[in-house]
């Protein structure tokens, strides 16, 4: 009877079904977009910025002094590279310094890297938008970020001077040429980080073949915690941090965006609830006499209550597959094509570390929660109409 009742007014029922479908499409769309953004951000953080894990001498992190290298770093690097869960591990020498050109100066972080390994770990070469990167037979080459290049008005093959202190606290200055300009999609990092071969930097730092950091890329994201624990046990005197600790703002963003997406979902559902409430109230008011007659004949009030609830559930169930299918199709389309958000401002997106093209990802893991939320909303919004039906007195209802 509930199923037949919903088809009394086809237009109205189709409106509710479409509302549920659009509510689901919008809700899942928002979740998919946020999931895509977060996946992209985390991917950038891991594969382009900090890797899965980083290993440092704790004193280096605390004092930021280049003398605090990783003790016996090379044998440790070999051991880590041979671990089955590790895809790549690369050494880095790091120091803070001053970049000076004819137009001005800027504080920078100078990263000495093994070019081939670095390409594998942080895709440095793939990020180049100008130049070919380091040449084997050329010295004093440097790769800088697009943002820094723009700020310092530096072009490819442009000259710059770097000044920093070596491991013995002597002030060192050296001239370099820009061998490449990279774009990372993370404006703050792009402005700060520049790269040169580790051998060149170590020569200037007087650190021999030592280094300050090992960046570790794992084969599987899910093995992060286990590997971190394993390395911490194996090297208790070193500081081993995962990307979540190295980029706490990303971890926080992932967690808070999850909550924000639910808040947006709730706002969409509130709009849906009012639609259902209004329509079901109308449906009950139109049937006042009929419901009064049913109670007069001996229909228990609980059955009347259930009837209105069931009608809403059926409408929701009818709208749910349509909404899910539409959400799946739309998400799949943009997952392949990408959703260009450059209209929101390329610089603004980059300043938060986001790419401008987002690839939404269908939130399978949240599907049950979303369905429970939609069906729960429908049920909640049908409570008032059902209660109104429940309160009808047959004598008054039959008079209408």
């Amino acid at each position, binding site marked *: *009877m509930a199923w*037949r*009742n919903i*088809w*009394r007014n086809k237009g109205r029922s189709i409106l509710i079904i479409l509302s549920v479908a659009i509510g689901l499409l919008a809700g899942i769309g928002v979740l998919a977009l946020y999931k895509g953004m977060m996946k992209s951000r985390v991917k950038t953080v891991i594969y382009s910025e900090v890797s899965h894990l980083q290993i440092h001498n704790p004193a280096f992190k605390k004092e930021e002094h280049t003398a605090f290298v990783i003790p016996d770093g090379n044998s440790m690097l070999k051991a880590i590279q041979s671990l089955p869960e590790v895809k790549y591990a690369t050494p880095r020498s790091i120091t803070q310094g001053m970049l000076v050109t004819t137009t001005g100066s800027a504080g920078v972080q100078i990263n000495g890297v093994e070019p081939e390994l670095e390409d594998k770990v942080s895709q440095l070469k793939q990020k180049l938008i100008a130049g070919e990167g380091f040449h084997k037979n050329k010295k004093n080459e440097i790769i800088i970020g697009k943002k820094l290049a723009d700020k310092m008005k530096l072009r490819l093959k442009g000259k710059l001077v770097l000044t920093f202190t070596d491991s013995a606290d002597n002030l060192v200055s050296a001239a370099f040429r820009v061998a490449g300009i990279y774009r990372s999609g993370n404006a703050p990092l792009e402005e700060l980080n520049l790269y040169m071969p580790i051998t060149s930097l170590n020569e200037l730092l007087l650190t021999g073949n030592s280094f300050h950091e090992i960046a570790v890329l794992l084969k599987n994201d899910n093995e992060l915690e286990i590997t971190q624990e394993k390395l911490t046990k194996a090297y208790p005197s070193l500081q081993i941090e995962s990307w979540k600790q190295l980029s706490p703002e990303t971890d926080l963003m992932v967690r808070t965006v999850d909550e924000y997406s639910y808040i947006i979902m709730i706002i969409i559902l509130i709009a849906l609830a009012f639609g259902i409430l209004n329509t079901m109230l109308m449906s009950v008011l139109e049937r006042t*006499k*009929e419901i009064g*007659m*049913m*109670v*007069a*004949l*001996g*229909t*228990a*009030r609980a*059955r009347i209550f259930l009837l209105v609830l069931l009608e809403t559930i059926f409408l929701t169930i009818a709208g749910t597959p349509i909404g899910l299918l539409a959400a799946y199709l739309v998400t799949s389309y943009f997952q392949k094509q990408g959703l260009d958000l450059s209209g929101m401002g390329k610089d603004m997106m980059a300043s938060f570390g986001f790419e401008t093209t987002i690839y939404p990802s269908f939130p399978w893991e949240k599907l049950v929660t979303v369905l429970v939320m939609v069906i729960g909303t429908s049920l909640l919004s049908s409570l008032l109409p059902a209660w109104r039906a429940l309160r009808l007195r*047959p*004598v008054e209802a*039959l008079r209408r």
Partner: protein
Amino acid sequence: MEKTVIDAHNISKVYNPKMIPVYAVNNVHLHMRQGEFTALVGPSGSGKTTLLNLIGGLDKPDEGNIFINGRDITKLSAGKLIDFRLHNIGFVFQSFNLIPVLTARENAEFIMLLQGAKKKEREKRMNQLFKEIELEDKMNVRPVELSGGQQQRVAVARALASHPQFILADEPTANLDSVSAAHLLDLMQKLNKEENITFLFSTHDQRVIERARRVITLVDGRIATDTAVVPTNVIHPSVAT
């Protein structure tokens, strides 16, 4: 002697008791036995529908008691009253009030479904009732495809489906043409005579009044006359005028 079905004592229903009290039903005594075919007549506003509602347990009197088969329904809670109506009283309304989304047969077996009757039992009863109301070929059509008279006959079948103690009919012929009204009255009379079903109906319709065996006239909520048209042994001495 037929058993007592309805026994109403001093029942009154007052509207606006605190402002200007209006007695829709005023100190009415009514006694009906099994098998009666009684018409409740009177001008508009005389309290016919209110009295039917009180006897049918759709409304509660402000004073007095109503016993149906010896059970005081004025003492029942709202929930128990619904259950009591389901098992004891059949209703026929002026505007048929069939459920439009159900077929004629589903409408008629609606009460049996509420009672939890089994499918076989329902089928048997529906075949019997639709034969009686002569709508066997219309069992599976929706009310909208039936004429007013046919709809009212389905409403009678619905009222009878659960073998109620009696049937209350509020102006059952008011929305029917004369042929349909005559057909309906034939049916109700036949059921009354052959199955000894008790009928109490409010009406303005002279054709209905002519067929009744007892006519109770209400004026301003009081019983003005209570006349036995055929043998008076069906009328309780306490209510005879």
